[in-house]
């Protein structure tokens, strides 16, 4: 079957892209293959694991069960948009510090979900964070240090300059 290409406009991490895509292409594949953003990973391709989580108009979605055409005219945020040059986003910092990752494969999706959680609930309880990240599977960490990392990032995100703290090379253990 010939599929007519669809022209879509995606604003990804603030940059506008006009693309022609087959309607069946999944958002995750367009991000990875067409736009060269491999940070959004593929885990199950049926919407369960959350590895491919991105923010679509600031709301988390599974990019593996979202057609790229569905994102037409909307803004997408991916893990590549978190750090500011050399400076890591506070959530990235805290994930690093608390060892909220092991293999790193779920990490981009988990980070994007955490961004949404903190944007919606800036001062969450441990239970709110735990239930919040239950949308995303992690097979390595048992989640404990992810919860710690999100909780540690929350006050930094609420502060006047979340990006400020100079990074110690050594963890606080």
């Amino acid at each position, binding site marked *: 079957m010939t599929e007519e290409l669809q022209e879509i406009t995606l604003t990804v991490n603030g940059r506008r892209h006009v693309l022609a895509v087959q309607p069946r292409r999944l958002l995750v594949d367009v991000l990875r293959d067409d736009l060269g953003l*491999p940070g959004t990973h593929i885990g199950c391709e049926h919407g369960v694991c959350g590895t491919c989580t991105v923010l679509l108009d600031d709301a988390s979605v599974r990019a593996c069960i979202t057609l790229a055409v569905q994102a037409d005219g909307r803004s997408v945020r*991916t893990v590549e948009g978190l750090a500011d040059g050399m400076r890591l986003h506070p959530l990235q910092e805290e994930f690093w510090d608390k060892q909220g990752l092991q293999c790193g494969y779920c990490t981009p999706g988990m980070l994007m979900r955490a961004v949404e959680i903190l944007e919606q609930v800036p001062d969450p309880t441990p239970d709110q964070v735990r239930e919040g990240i239950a949308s995303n599977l992690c097979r390595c960490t048992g989640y404990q240090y992810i919860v710690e990392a999100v909780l540690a990032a929350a006050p930094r995100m609420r502060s006047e300059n979340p990006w400020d703290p100079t990074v110690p090379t050594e963890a606080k253990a």
Partner: protein
Amino acid sequence: MTTTARPPAPPVRSHPENRKWVGKSIRRVEDPKFLRGRGGYIADLVRPGTLHAAVLRSPHAHARIVSIDTDAAAALDGVYAVVTGAQAAELTEPLPDFGPDPAKHTWRCLAVDKVRYVGEGVAVVVADDRYLAEDALALIDVDYDPLPPVVDPERALDAGAPLVHEALGSNLAYERTFDFGDVDADFAAADLVVRDRLRWHRSGGQPLETVGAIADFDPSTGQLTAHTNSLSFTSYLFMVANTLRIPANKLDIHQVPAGGSFGSKLFVTKPLVLAAMCSRLVGRPVVYLEDRVDNISNCDHHGSDRVYDVRLAVTRDGRIRGIDIDTVDDYGAYIQFGVGHHGNALAQVTGPYTIDSVRYRVRAALTNKNQQGAYRGFGSEVNNWMLEQMVDKAARELGMDPVQIRRRNFIRPDQFPYFIPTGNVYDSGNYDAVLDQALEIGEYDRWRAEQTQAREEGRYLGVGLIAAQERSVFSATEFWFWFDEPGAPVTSMPESVTLNVDATGGITATLYSCAFWGNSPETMVAQLVAEEFDCDPHDVSIIYHGSQGGLPATGPGGSRTTVMLAGAVEGASAKIKRKARRAASELMEVDPDDLEWFDGGYQVRGVPEQRKTLGDIAIALHLFKHSFPEDVESGLEESQVFDHPYTTMPSADRKDLGVFYPFMGHACHVPVVEVDIATGEVRILAYAAVHDCGTLVNPRSLAGHIVGGTAQGIGTALYEEFVYDDTGQLITSSFLDYSIPTAMEVPHLRIGHVETPSPYTPHGIKGGGEGGRMMAPAALNAAVNDALAPLGVRVTELPMTPDRLRAAIRAAGVVTGGR
């Protein structure tokens, strides 16, 4: 106890004190790239122009392949090749197989004459992209002649059962009974024989990233360059070359980070062989990356699937004398690693206890299922569960407390090194100390009090307590001591490191196998290098060498990475320091014996202002070779191949298997659960885990492994199972049905560490990557049984699903009112 004459143990080491970096929870050096989404996983390395392969999976458990029509698929635009199993058998040899008598159950990258499980590959398509490749799969027409399936492992062994492999003549791939010690005498002397039948169903690692490989065959040189997220057993890659019919020195396999493994990426050769076969056929780079259904149904790494009939010989005062284990293990359709999973079990078959004798009968059944491979514990976790179940049952029958019976049987600290009846040694341990801490941080007494109150309210709280072993650093004898012939010398399973000090004193470490699996080989090596050279671990560069021209290496597995890399770093560092000391002595014109290493350089003993830093020495060695004697070469680079530090041969009669898994960690887990007896739901209220993995390198990393492994163990205990129905259909072929615990199913763990150093390893390190999962299934089963004790119910089957719990509760005649 056997009285076998044993080779001497390696010399006991003294471990340095006042460590700077070993023992610190530093940030992992690997992490920034992962946090930025620049991990460089296999899927990230696919370049434009690379073709994509997809595999057509069998929908049948057991069927003869009558014919395959690939014409329509091959005619689709964008399709480069369609290869059937029969064609693949012309292009490749069978896959590397460590099983017993592989010729009788030949394992290939695609099925040839018949399919033996749902999901087995029958053809592969190569196309411009994955979408097109899947379109083409739908156009392949396979004519199957269904055969009766073999699903139940015990029925598989019945006479007249359909045969998975006709050439084998039965479905029994392996059987042997071993006696260690005087089992009959111990049972004759027992006051009580505790018996049980236990069932552990199969689950698997299920990393969030599947297995894949990118292969690029260069016809002009005959060289195959491949990237894969399963680079391990590097020293055995010549077997892959053999499968591909290329010279071993024309195969170069490059490590890429794996998005999790948990064992399931151990020596996975099928995707690599498929991609390589296709690349050679079409003359283009080809990627084959499993999708989730491939990974669940065709990964060759399902976990153990065992039926146990066990007897335990105990005395009235709670002493365990002997254990008699009869197990049937459902290996699925092939048996790539032989019964090595039972070698893992035999490494610690008696747990932390002074059990004198062991009878171990193992039967490996072949069935129409995906085969077993590795899953965190490699079969030892099943043994832990079986043994702890039996110990709890003995305690119940004797009216003893679970703590009391364990303490009574613990090996005491002054008994190490301790040889268990199978011949394996436990290097060191302090089991009472671990138990004491677990009882404390697990608030055991408080929970017992809560339990009493809850029972009065009609609630079913249970406190689990298990004490079990976590073996580390295997010797491959466990893969062959099963057979009298062919014997082989002790296999050393080496690991290698090269350290290079550049002209500025910057250090680069090269690793030859240790793939990144989510463990942290780079951080660990960086910490160990920093410890040796007084630098910051984050300033150490780590690179990986491809397999071609690489030093001998093995890779992760069996919790060996940290110990083996520590040995290699130690050796290479000593060589660097030897050369540096000599160079420093030349530069300062002093006797080398007058120099001491201090804070990143050599200085004259007692004259600290007279010193040369490593950078001073390195620039001289790199640029000014002629300042040194004739035999000093330019540069500062040394390698160390570190071989297994303590392994010995099995006895000829196999009554003693020798030392094959000597660095023995230990743990005690104390979970508290509440069981809703009306629904069979199990809720975890609290969980404490104390581990002793010898000297800690990065405590936060180890704690992460404990929590993560425990989370997987929770899955094994309560949620995860690859379910094949009576017809051999796999009914859990996606994450919709294979339920992995989320953050809401995993409790906050309280973690404790005890450090009993190994006398035989650098710094006294033991492996600890698998421990969480080696404990949690046993611990949760114990907790559930404790909860249900007032009803007289014991659950003997994992996972403990609502169906299984409700069936057990119903069978006990308990009536619940839907509450």
